[in-house]
């Protein structure tokens, strides 16, 4: 099961994904993500820090879901501009196998720079 929590009290807002990102929970996760991401705080394209370091297991469905999320967040009217802050090894391995990961992106999401990572992305 997947846990999706959006913490808008911080800046940038944090979307934490944890648990198993697999076919079993993919559809539910999709709905949860849509719901979380619709809680816009008004400003267009405010920064969103996506933390996927808590992912314990991932498969093709999971990577696909993140790709869809990235497309969603890329839309012109998207409330957020997202950056992938943490990426669990399990997720990275699958993404690489599918050709969805390189030095700049993972699952369609821009990867945080080293500087951003070390600063923890928190304000």
């Amino acid at each position, binding site marked *: 099961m997947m846990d999706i929590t959006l913490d808008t009290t911080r800046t940038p807002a944090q979307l934490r994904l944890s648990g198993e990102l697999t076919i079993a929970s*993919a559809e539910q996760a999709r709905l949860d993500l849509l719901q979380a991401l619709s809680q816009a705080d008004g400003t267009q394209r405010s920064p969103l820090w996506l933390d996927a370091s808590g992912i314990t297991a991932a*498969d*093709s469905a999971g990577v696909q879901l993140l790709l869809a999320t990235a497309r*969603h967040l890329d839309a012109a009217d998207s409330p957020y501009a997202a950056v992938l802050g943490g990426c669990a090894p399990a997720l990275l391995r699958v993404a690489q196998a*599918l050709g969805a990961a390189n030095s700049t992106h993972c699952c369609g999401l821009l990867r945080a720079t080293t500087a951003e990572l070390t600063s923890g992305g928190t304000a």
Partner: protein
Amino acid sequence: MNDEELDLRPAFEAFLVEGRELVTELEQGLLRLEQGHDQNDAELINGMFRAAHTIKGSAGIVGIANLGQFTHHVESLLDRVREGEPLLDTAMIGRLLACCDHIGQLLDLAEAGDTEGRPLAAAGAALLQQLNGTPSSPAAPDAAPADTAAPAAGGSSAQGFRLWLSFGRDCLRDGIDPAAALIYLADHVDIDQCCLLPQQVPTLRELNAEDCRLAVALRGRNGTAQDARSAFEFFGDGTLLACCDASASHAEVHGALQGLRTELGDEALQPWRDAGLITEAEWLLQTAAPEPTATTSPSTEAPARAIPTASEGAAKGKGAATGSTPAPRFLRVPAEKLDELILQVGELVIAGASVDVLSREVRNPRLQEAVGQLAQLIDTIQSGTLQLRMVPIGETFNRFQRVVRDVSTELGKDITLELVGGDTELDKAMVERIGDPLMHLVRNAMDHGLETPAERIANGKPGQGTLRLRAFHDSGNVVIEVSDDGRGLNRERIVAKAVERGLISNGESLSDNEAYQLIFEPGFSTAEAVTSLSGRGVGMDVVKKSVEALRGSITLHSHPGQGALVQLRLPLTLAIIDGFMVGVAHARFILPLDLVIECIELPQDALQSDARYLNLRGEVLPYVCLRQTFGVTGAASTKRPSVVVVRSGEIKTGVLVDSLHGEIQTVIKPMSRIFQHLRSVSGTSILGSGDIALILDVHQLVQRSVERAARPATTPIASTLATT
């Protein structure tokens, strides 16, 4: 460790059976070569090599190491023969035959539980020394075990490939994960590049999370297109796959991509073009403009490379079996399962007969038609299942090649074996049980019947004697003959011996056949010297018992100075009979239908009380009265008795009955052991009505009546039984 042992047990047992078959095959090959078969026959030599090879390999797997090691040397030698070394002279063939025997003995030991074979180790070593001459072979064995073919990984030429995939929409639902297959592939080849088409994935709102909308292309630095395809074997028809070796021409790649371009649209594949996984030349394929790597073979290549779907890829492009006819496929089935099935079919036939009887009473035409169809189907199934048990006797006959060869050498006689009718089929159970009696008859013929070359020539015969095994079907029986062109049976000596042993007082009143039958008396033997083979007199009576235990009969024929013939007559079907039912009073009897020639209704006064003969259109027909034979009491059910004319071999006989009841197909229930002395009845059957009918053994019936006709007293069989 225990679990491993348990797992191997079925394999072990299967190997014992298979191993023996392979040894036989090897032996047959060697004998053929010895008899002058072309030594350059590649197919024969290869077959022999493969047999040895399989024995060696399988023995190792099931844990009979010494057998594997021994056979390895045989295999090595055959390998050298395969390569063209002319090693197979008569002496070597003899040594190899001895090796076959040794392998058989090791199998016997293994079956008895001894997989080390220590008792035979010394003999084995001696054989191998003879086989190899100089101990130069040890070098070879080390290379041999590495036979295990490791899966393709890296084995094939490291050229590289490119792969383009659009995974089927349902593959995730089907439980197949593209990433898993890609990770597997990456474990076996080096992937240089991997590129996904992100725009194929719908946006979050539109996505169905369980669909698979992934399309990936990749380049492998080594490995082949075949390796790549095999990783995606299990993806269904929905997955589009295109794959080309690194050496593929532009036209090939272009053609391969057509399916994907059609399916996804040209624009979708742009990321792959950007990543260099599709070159512009491959994309555009300007046939007008000359290309440096110009494809000289344009469109004909393309269709061949056209997108094979994963299911087609599974066909492996190894090409359809070119030329070679598909070998017949066999299935190994436990005999008990087959027996059980035949039993059930038997019950089915009985049940079908009941239905048939009842349906006739109801007189519903549609029901009768349906029942008729049912009967047809049951008939077909019955024939089919019975056929399953039939095996050609040729396999048994072939074993005698070796025996005749060895024994004739041992006896210093020149004997050739002629086999006729090897494709005659009989019940498997019978084949197994007839082997030993036949063996004894063959040895007898060689030992006593056939003379030495010198004696033969002195008698104006060719120096080489002929022993003939012949099998054929006749009137519901299988007939097996063992004949030779030797001395024949000596009637006088036989009678003299019988008198000497007090078996008979004098032999004058005996017919020739009866005199010969004396041989079957226990303890009887006319051999002057008891050889190691026969002559102890324990053989022939056992042969007769074995044959009769199979409900068969054995007769001897002889021409003094010219030869002898032993004829075994065995029933063909053990389980179900096509019969003709007759009645005496309320009793019912069944005659085998294929022995029935005709039926005659008689006027009552046509029977003379004691004559046992009829005038059948000018022919003299002896007959048997069933009522008398079986001591049936009860009034005749009809005024006019009938005679059914039956055939046994060439002899015709009549069977006098009260009533005729037409054709019937029914299951034979064998008689229990209490009745084993009951002649003339080969079994019983349960009729549709629930009554029991006796199935008559026509041959026996005829025999007895012929014998009885020669003697004055006519005691019914029933009372004869009481005294036996």
